[in-house]
């Protein structure tokens, strides 16, 4: 599904990623953990194709295709989805309008038929119900005045609607209490499928209690320094990053 090979990325002329390599096969959930400043957010922005994140070396292949030259909207249409750590507020644009624009823009880019208003409403109502998102919330301006939990649920709703092949969850647990996190995790787990992969980026182990990964990678200094199974997270929790990374180094 996703193959990252020797990826080097600089932001404002500063090298952040220095040789990151990672393979995520279809249907698997991989977690990237790392201390502050390790390059976690850079990884997610680079995969989504944000301006200013310059790939200076290495490659990102998604379903065998080179992603580096593609603008963000085309990557999205090909099935890459980034759940933002801090979802943006757009005043005056209702969540419903935004979602419809996104679903149809991707359909257009893929050469598929756009949904009409009735089909779309039916689709979104069904999807929203499962995530405990009220119709009133859909009518409000996108993320404006939403609580932290509502914003993250809105991200999961988008994911459910857009049906990506690869979902990147960037620090999805930040700013959430346990109940909100459980709700979000349930939403994510419901979307797990043999043809869908997840890349869960997080600082803390706690989210991984709810979204159980197949593999865990530790990112430090712009590279994956250690990989392992779920037990690695527990080890980190007990010993801290310094001890675990220190052992590696």
């Amino acid at each position: 599904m996703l193959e990252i090979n020797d990826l080097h990325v600089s932001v404002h002329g500063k090298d952040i990623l220095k040789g990151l390599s990672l393979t995520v096969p279809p249907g698997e959930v991989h977690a990237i953990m790392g201390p502050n400043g390790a390059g976690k957010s850079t990884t997610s922005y680079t995969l989504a194709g944000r301006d200013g994140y310059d790939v200076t070396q290495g490659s990102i292949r998604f379903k065998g295709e080179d992603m580096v030259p593609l603008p963000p909207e085309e990557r999205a249409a090909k099935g890459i989805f980034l759940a933002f750590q801090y979802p943006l507020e757009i005043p005056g644009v209702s969540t419903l309008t935004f979602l419809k624009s996104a679903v149809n823009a991707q359909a257009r880019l893929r050469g598929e038929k756009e949904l009409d208003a009735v089909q779309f409403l039916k689709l979104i109502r069904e999807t929203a119900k499962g995530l405990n998102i009220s119709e009133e919330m859909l009518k409000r301006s996108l993320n404006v005045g939403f609580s932290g939990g509502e914003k993250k649920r809105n991200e999961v709703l988008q994911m459910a609607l857009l049906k990506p092949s690869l979902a990147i969850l960037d620090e999805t647990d930040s700013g959430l209490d346990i109940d909100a996190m459980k709700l979000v995790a349930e939403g994510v787990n419901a979307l797990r499928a043999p043809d869908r992969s997840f890349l869960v980026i997080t600082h803390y182990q706690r989210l991984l209690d709810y979204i159980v990964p197949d593999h865990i990678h530790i990112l430090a200094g712009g590279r994956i320094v250690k990989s392992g199974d779920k037990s690695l997270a527990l080890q980190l929790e007990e010993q801290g990053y310094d001890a675990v990374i220190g052992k590696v180094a």
Partner: protein
Amino acid sequence: MSQQAETLQELADQKYKYGFVTDIESEFAPKGLNEEIVRFISGKKNEPGWMLEWRLDAYRRWLTMTEPKWARVDYPPIDFQDSYYFAAPKNDSDKPKNLDEVDPELLKTYEKLGIPLSEQKMLAGVAVDAVFDSVSVATTFKAKLEEVGVIFCPLSEALAKHPELVRKYLGTVVPVTDNYYATLNSAVFSEGSFVYVPEGVRCPMELSTYFRINASKTGQFERTLIIAEKNSYVSYLEGCTAPMRDENQLHAAVVELVALEGAEIKYSTVQNWYPGDENGKGGIYNFVTKRGDCRGANSKISWTQVETGSAITWKYPSCILRGDNSVGEFYSIAIANNCQQADTGTKMIHLGKNTKSRIISKGISAGRAQNTYRGLVSVHAKADGARNFTQCDSLLMGSRCGAHTVPYIESHNPGAIVEHEATTSKISDDQLFYCLSRGIGTEEAVALIVNGFCREVLQQLPMEFAVEAQKLVGISLEGSVG
């Protein structure tokens, strides 16, 4: 980034959609302006003697006046003698006639502009008066309106058929000497719409006037008068376009609204005059005086404008809140791109008790454009309980444009509450990226965000036009982000 910029550049190079010229033979008044021209125009319209005297008086006063200079707009001096003050399609005789007699070339023109004049093809529920240069070429649904007593016709026809109404109200909201351009208009106005809604009548359909400048070197000076009698209601919309030309053409209109006790007038404008090219060559100078008088208690006048065109916009649709409990509203979207200059806003004059006004202004500047909101809220000593709320937001796109806010707030009454807020923002890279990462392209994302920014105003437009206006907002800004 560069890829986005390219796409947008391509879009920016698209021509103004309404820039074509209709090839039709026209009759002109001799070029220039003098008393003879004023007599010529009045004669063309077979006006009564008092109307001619009114015009001549205005003309003489105009000669003693000077152009206002306080607006933040900059343009070379206008040579008022280098323009035609009257132009009409030649085979159009003195007055508008039935649709089947209208020159097919004109019908085609309006069809091309998206305003089919045949009643079968029209948007249901919208009556249209089509003004081409200095004359009205057709007014639709007149008969249907007459059934309920609503008069909707060209002003020249109203002068012939209802002279007492015109004489009673014309110039009572915008006096002849109000300002330089209004006085010029009073002397040479050639066409416009007249609306009269009788007591207690709710006008059964939207009324709309579509203004088209076609002839070269010609100014358009229409005059619109709307009277809503006690407890009546009318919603009126105007649209405007002009061909692309290298020259600057003058449009100096006057609009007067009179709302009597309990009446409500909703006046919407989608202004899409030719804005000039990306280097600022050509385009319409839009110097317009619009004012509504809430003459009766509990009356309401609401202005909504979407200003996307014109090289220069100088326009302040205002409300005189004379009647107790009367309400004035001003909802505005002003977009200035490339070299456009817009200086627009409103005046809310609170005279009566418990009068309320609301101003929502959304200014968008892009390219090298200058966009100014200028507004006055004035509360007079007797306006106990007056309330005003003003929100002025500016959105800047790019670092070469300017956004300016010049509000005047004057209160002479301790029982009044006046509130004003203004903000300035840009489309953040984060917002744009968020949209892109969901698969929405740059151009669509900008249109989406800007439409969100303008939503409060767009919601005020009649349904049929809101969709058009939304598209126009997107089109006007093409090429502004990259």
